[in-house]
């Protein structure tokens, strides 16, 4: 169906589908635009949807077409993306980007911001986009890779592009996981103009992968005159990737973190992923070490069992103990558990506060040696305490 030029469709409809719209476009040689709309929200937004469809088609330069829309309450940015996707599949409106109204961009994200949790949202499921940030993760990842069916890569790309523009992600860092290269580079052409804060690069095995992505991002940003930083987080998912961890972490100035994908890593090794994670202990420790050596954050994989919050709690506590600063999550219920696990404990905060006070006191008195009670405090300990306090402050644990 997608191969036959001039007739194509995009999006989903049906009783089980919510917040999406199926659009079928059949180009005509002459005549006019005929829109046939069936919508769950016809009494409220039917006229608005028809007006929007006409305007999108006009922007795409389509003047003659039969358009059928089965709407399940899709929001305007989804409707635009689905019409544009159907048009492109029909070989129409090439080279034109129809952008929805944008929300104000949040401030650019800082290189070393807190990245405890990142919530994965499938790039082809519009119903999850709008409220993802309400659950309070540090980041939302709009995923173009594994959660998107190979046949929907083109449509998901447009949906994610529009979401980056039209959805208010509140205080979350706006991340996109692109596809494995080379397809991932095409994703960048569509995504980067909408200023994502960070790009996750899947299946990174060598520094070249990172450099290729960095270069393409720089080109697109140059074309669009974008100066805001777009950070990188390579995902190491193979034995080779783990072996190259340090070099991957060092490959680009834009890299702020590296992370691991355990499903693929264990598959690569031919071992079973267990609840304890013993089989990936080496890889995870290696990654933590490489990250610290390269001066970037070490971020853990996702915990895949949706219902096992106790298992997640144990995993996250262990993960923090190993030196990770955060992990991914696939369900909003995981967010508070992860945040709790990666937060410094009140005992740690108390101790750090005392060390920092002793340090300030020594500075004020011009002493070279910092002591707390009868114990001398080494400078690295002071630095660690300062870092912990800064982190606790950023998490809102101390004021």
């Amino acid at each position: 169906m997608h191969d036959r030029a001039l007739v194509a469709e995009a999006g989903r409809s049906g009783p089980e589908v919510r917040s999406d719209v199926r659009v079928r476009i059949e180009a005509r040689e002459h005549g006019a635009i005929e829109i046939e709309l069936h919508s769950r929200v016809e009494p409220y937004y039917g006229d608005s949807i028809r007006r929007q469809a006409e305007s999108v088609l006009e922007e795409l330069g389509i003047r003659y077409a039969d358009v059928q829309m089965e709407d399940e309450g899709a929001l305007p940015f989804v409707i635009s993306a689905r019409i544009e996707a159907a048009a492109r599949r029909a070989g129409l409106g090439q080279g034109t980007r129809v952008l929805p109204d944008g929300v104000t961009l949040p401030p650019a994200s800082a290189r070393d911001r807190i990245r405890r949790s990142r919530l994965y949202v499938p790039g082809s499921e519009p119903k999850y986009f709008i409220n993802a940030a309400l659950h309070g993760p540090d980041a939302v990842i709009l995923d173009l890779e594994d959660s998107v069916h190979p046949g929907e890569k083109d449509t998901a790309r447009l949906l994610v592009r529009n979401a980056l523009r039209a959805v208010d992600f509140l205080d979350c860092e706006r991340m996109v996981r692109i596809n494995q290269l080379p397809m991932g580079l095409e994703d960048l052409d569509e995504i980067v103009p909408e200023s994502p804060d960070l790009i996750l690069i899947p299946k990174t095995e060598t520094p070249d992968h990172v450099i290729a992505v960095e270069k393409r991002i720089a080109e697109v940003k140059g074309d669009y005159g974008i100066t805001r930083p777009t950070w990188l987080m390579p995902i190491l998912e193979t034995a080779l990737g783990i072996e190259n961890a340090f070099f991957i972490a060092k490959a680009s100035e834009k890299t702020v973190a590296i992370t691991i994908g355990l499903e693929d890593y264990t598959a690569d090794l031919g071992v079973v992923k267990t609840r304890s994670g013993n089989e990936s202990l080496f890889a995870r420790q290696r990654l933590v070490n490489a990250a610290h050596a390269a001066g970037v954050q070490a971020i853990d994989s996702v915990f895949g069992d949706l219902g096992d919050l106790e298992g997640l709690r144990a995993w996250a506590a262990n993960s923090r103990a190993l030196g990770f600063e955060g992990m991914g999550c696939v369900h909003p219920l995981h967010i508070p558990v992860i945040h709790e696990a990666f937060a410094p404990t009140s005992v740690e905060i108390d101790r750090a506060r005392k060390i920092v006070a002793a340090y300030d006191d020594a500075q004020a008195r011009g002493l070279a040696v910092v002591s707390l009670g009868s114990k001398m405090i080494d400078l690295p300990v002071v630095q660690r305490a300062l870092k912990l306090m800064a982190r606790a402050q950023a998490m809102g644990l101390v004021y």
Partner: protein
Amino acid sequence: MPVAEKAELITNAAGRVVPETVNGRHQLPYMGLGKYHPSGRKASAPIRTAADYPANGDKVVPDLETALRKCGLRDGMVLSSHHHLRDGDTVALAMLQAAAKIGVKDLMWFPSASFPSQKGAIELMQAGVIDHIEGSLNGPLGDYCTQGKMRGMGVLRSHGGRWQAIQDGEVRIDIAVIAAPTADPFGNCDGSHGKSACGSLGFALGDSIYADHVIVVTDNLVPFPCVPWQIQGNNVDYVVQVNSIGDPSKIVSGTTQITRSPDRLRVAELVARFLRDAGIMRNGFSFQAGAGGIALAFVSYLRQMMKDSGVKARFVRGGSTKYLVELLEEGLTDYILDGQTFDIDGVRSMAANPGHVATSPFTSYNYHGKGNFASMIDAVVLGATEVDANFNANVVTHSDGRLLHGIGGWQNCLASKCTILAVPSFRDRIPVIVDEVTTLCGPGELIDVVVTERGIAINPLREDLRNAVKGSKLPIRPLREIQEEVERICGGKPSHPKRSDRAVAVVKWVDGTLLDSVWQVI
């Protein structure tokens, strides 16, 4: 034969347009909260004599048709039924079909609620057996009504309002048919035992006291006495034994499921945090929550917070479910005062636990009494289809004017000390916070808090609540601000669906006055 009259319309104290007469009866418009003071004496059933009833207590007759004939069924009578068997009930429809077989016309069906499985009533309306329904109308019956096909006008009442209408003589029930999971030949009934056990029979209590004739239908006839008796056989004329009064799988759900939707869980958690942070959750407090997904999740969040803080409730009110039963069994509440039992855990608990008490709309909700339980509850969590910027809310119609839900106990619960609407801010692109509700069911003065996934709005009239949560981490926001945010997301304000100026149903307030009309959908 009353054909839907083109009624004179007037504007009531809430600014809503209502008819002056409904089904040939003069009506009072809503006058404002607590403004209407009724006078006169309550209605009563005819005096009977034991001389006319079998001294051995055996009132069993062969079938429902015989019982209806013996009760003197004739054209234009009022027949009542009850929804404690919910969508599994087969007795109400059997009653109406037996009446059709007898050949009577123009009946008024007066159910405590109707369910989709009773859509067979439509054929009986088309055939003229039923003139109209006064009771909740939803699904196919709701569509039949809002399309203007029902001859008489629908009358929607709360559970408490139904008791009030019976007690005040607004509705005189000629024959009440009570489906009983257990009964004895004298007519004593119990809902908590038997293969069709459903818990409380509270909805049928008023009918048993005030109706001219009462028929009990049971699939578990036990020798006298049926203990406990929730309905007294002394009010019962005839008892009919049948193989089944309903489909047990639809009477109670095997498992009541907490919502898995992250957005709805967030709403539920915010509600629980609100109760905690506002200081409502304290030793000896009380609350009510129903069986919807958000309400169930709310109970499970609150339960954890109660445990963490070492707080116990004095009583909780249901719709009882597994989640309330857990509170009772863990000692987190002294009592469940149960108006309606939703799942097998609730039924089991009511049968076994003296702290799990069956209640009726009289004790819980009746506004024309010497008080009721609803106003003594510290907090209640309710749903709504729409709420406006002044906190007025709709629970019966969809935004397109179609009837969607009955009122249930919703209006009665608004009397609680803190009424919380727990709602998503939009559904399928349709904003829940609107400029004006399609149908007014609850005056905004009684609605204190609206909790959505995008924030919590406190009614400006409740400065005490606003102060109580000052300094908390709760996302407190003006309702108008949430409304504007949602309109931005949804691409502007929704258009108003067209509607006719013909009232097809009315919404009663808890005092029997007319709060609003439901209009024929074009």
